[in-house]
């Protein structure tokens, strides 16, 4: 009798545990497949980015024979299907591998403690170049770079001071300034929202640049910020957007990765109930994924092009090391080519400010 009850208690425990494991498994899956509903959209998104890319695209045309060379890429905990920079970077690397005959491989990091072993896997196997994607890699990258002075490493979104690391930073503030101008000239309520992922220096750059852009053309408009606290929670992103729209905002600029998908959902819901609101997308031309009815424009950050360029440079023997910062001048950030929702006079204004930033007449603040 007693044994039986013990047994069933054991069963219950097993069920609870397996449930927990399944549930937690689902949780991390979500991280990887954010908004997996439209996987097809991501491919055209990054492809359409390439034609718009002019100056930094130089390498793609030239033929480099890199047979036998290997390129590695370690993702951060977002995973390779994050619809954000990890995915962009990996798609770019695959393309490079196809074009040059080099071999490309990725390793996903499931925990923070995986960063070092993952980078090491590539380094110790003699990879020509090893990428760490995302600013979370900064510390691991520094350690590995010091321990392996002969390895060639590259890093996105953070800067490591070592001769064998090429760090690629973006001037998100400059691109955000331009979409700020679009927002400032488009808003009817003079209330604009900003939804950020986490309060990191890199996201702050988006916010500050955006605010400066709005203020430059529409001093009467106010920008309210709302931080979600996570890059992979669309539900919280939706909530943050709802708060801002309820407060009277008619445009929201998001820099919240996967959480930003919720901002689009909220805008779609409002559009259905006859309330016209706009979202400004981030990282790639998000109108391709979420439609032109709600996407005003996007602040594109061309991670794929940076990855392509640095990789091709390395394969052709021109690895430089040091830090590059890609801004408007270098074509690293900017608006998409097609902006059907932005009238001509606004686009002219954007172009005007773009030239001013490039010439150095305007310096966009970063914090």
């Amino acid at each position, binding site marked *: *009798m*007693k*044994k039986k009850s*013990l047994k069933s208690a054991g069963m219950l*425990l*097993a069920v*609870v*545990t*397996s449930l*927990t*494991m399944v549930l*937690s498994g689902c*949780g*991390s899956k979500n991280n990887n497949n954010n908004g997996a509903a439209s996987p097809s959209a991501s491919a055209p998104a990054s492809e359409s980015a390439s034609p718009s890319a002019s100056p930094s695209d130089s390498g793609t045309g030239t033929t480099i024979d890199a047979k036998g060379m290997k390129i590695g890429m370690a993702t951060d905990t977002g995973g*390779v299907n994050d619809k954000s920079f990890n995915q962009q970077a990996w798609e770019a690397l695959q393309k490079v591998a196809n074009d040059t005959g080099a071999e490309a*491989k990725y*390793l*996903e990091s499931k*925990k*923070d*403690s*995986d960063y*070092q*072993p*993952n980078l*090491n*896997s590539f380094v*110790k*196997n003699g990879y020509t170049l090893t990428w760490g994607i995302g600013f*979370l890699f*900064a*510390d691991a990258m520094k350690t590995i770079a010091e*321990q392996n002075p002969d390895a060639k490493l590259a890093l996105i979104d953070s800067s490591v001071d070592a001769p064998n690391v090429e760090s690629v930073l973006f001037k998100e503030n400059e691109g955000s300034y331009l979409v700020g101008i679009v927002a400032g000239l488009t808003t009817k309520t003079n209330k604009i929202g900003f939804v950020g992922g*986490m309060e*990191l*220096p890199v996201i702050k750059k988006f916010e500050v640049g955006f605010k400066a852009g709005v203020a430059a053309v529409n001093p009467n408009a106010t920008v309210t910020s709302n931080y979600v*606290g*996570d*890059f*992979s*929670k669309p539900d919280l992103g939706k909530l943050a957007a709802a708060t801002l729209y309820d407060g009277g905002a008619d445009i929201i600029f998001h820099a919240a990765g996967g959480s930003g998908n919720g901002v689009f959902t909220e805008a779609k819901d409002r559009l259905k109930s006859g309330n016209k609101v706009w979202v400004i997308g981030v990282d790639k031309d998000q109108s391709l994924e979420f439609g032109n009815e709600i996407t005003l424009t996007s602040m594109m950050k061309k991670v794929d092009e940076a990855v392509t360029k640095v990789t091709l440079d390395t394969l052709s023997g021109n690895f430089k090391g040091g830090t590059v910062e890609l801004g408007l001048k270098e074509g690293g950030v900017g608006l998409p080519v097609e902006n059907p929702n932005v009238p001509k006079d606004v686009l002219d204004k954007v172009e005007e400010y773009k030239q001013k930033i490039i010439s150095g007449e305007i310096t966009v603040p970063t914090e």
Partner: protein
Amino acid sequence: MSENQSVRKWSRIFVASSIWVPIIAIILGLICGAIVMWIGGFNAWDAYSALFKKVFGSKYDIGETIRTITPLLFTGLSVGFAFRAGLFNIGADGQFIMGMTGATILGIKIDFLPWILHAPIAVLGGMIVGGLWGALAGYLKSSRGVNEVISCIMLNWIALYLSNYLIRTLVLKQGSQRSEEIQSSASMSIDWLSKAMDNARMDWGIVFGLICTSLFYIILWRTKQGYELRAVGFNPEAARFSGINVSKNMLKSMMISGMIAGLGGVFEVLGVFHYQVISAASSGYGFDGIAVALLGGNHPVGILLSSILFGVLTYGSAGMNFTAGVPTEIVRIVIGCVIFFVASQGLIQMLYKPFTARRDAKRKEAA
């Protein structure tokens, strides 16, 4: 009588005749995983040899595998200890985080002590913080009858956000999402061993883990206190009737359980990272610990073995992906297969029951 039987049931796992159950389970799991890989068009033999090569292939990998095992051992022991006293400590995750936080703050803020004092203080401090966090759930259970599963789940979230808050306000490294580095006097890394192991991150954690494993056994089976704890676990009513203070023992077991989990967090900070990141989600070591404890039959030796199994699978899976080219999704399925079979021991016993049935019948006759 029934108590005797269940004691036999637990201890039977470690006598020669029933050591076969986990071994058969692991083999079945590997076969099942192989079938999955075969269906997916991958060479299972290559994949498995890649897994073992990844784990035992180089000094660096052996070191990093030990590093992966350490936190699993701690959280497994923590959950197992509470199980023995009849409590389901699903909050090892939160206690782990609190241990990390305690060690981080003590490790950074104290900057005037020599190594010989600072390191023990940081270790003990983190351990106590973790223990108190566990005791909180134990207190709610013993004094108010709050189900420890529910309070623990909630406390996990509170621990996560409290820890983020404390790091942000007390020890944040400017311009990043992590704490400053701990003082070198608090470090629990073994530098000479790391050098010898090709820069793998080696620390004293595993030594303390083994000490905890033996303490686990000594406390529970060789002291009066342990007898009381186990009595409460088997049947709280009977324990109360025989004069044992049940609520005090519940509180104690949760506190000890929390201390063990906290120690896991302590070594993660003082030994592996030397800083703590502000993260949106927990590392999940506490939940892995539940599986480790169940798999190990809540026996210290079993937990040690199962933490090794989990650690090897976790660290080695990167090798299956890296060397054998098996995509991470399939690797996860394979790992899941192994864990499933190992966890469902009843299934294995059912499979081999026909072989032992005759013997059992004979025994019955004899009785």
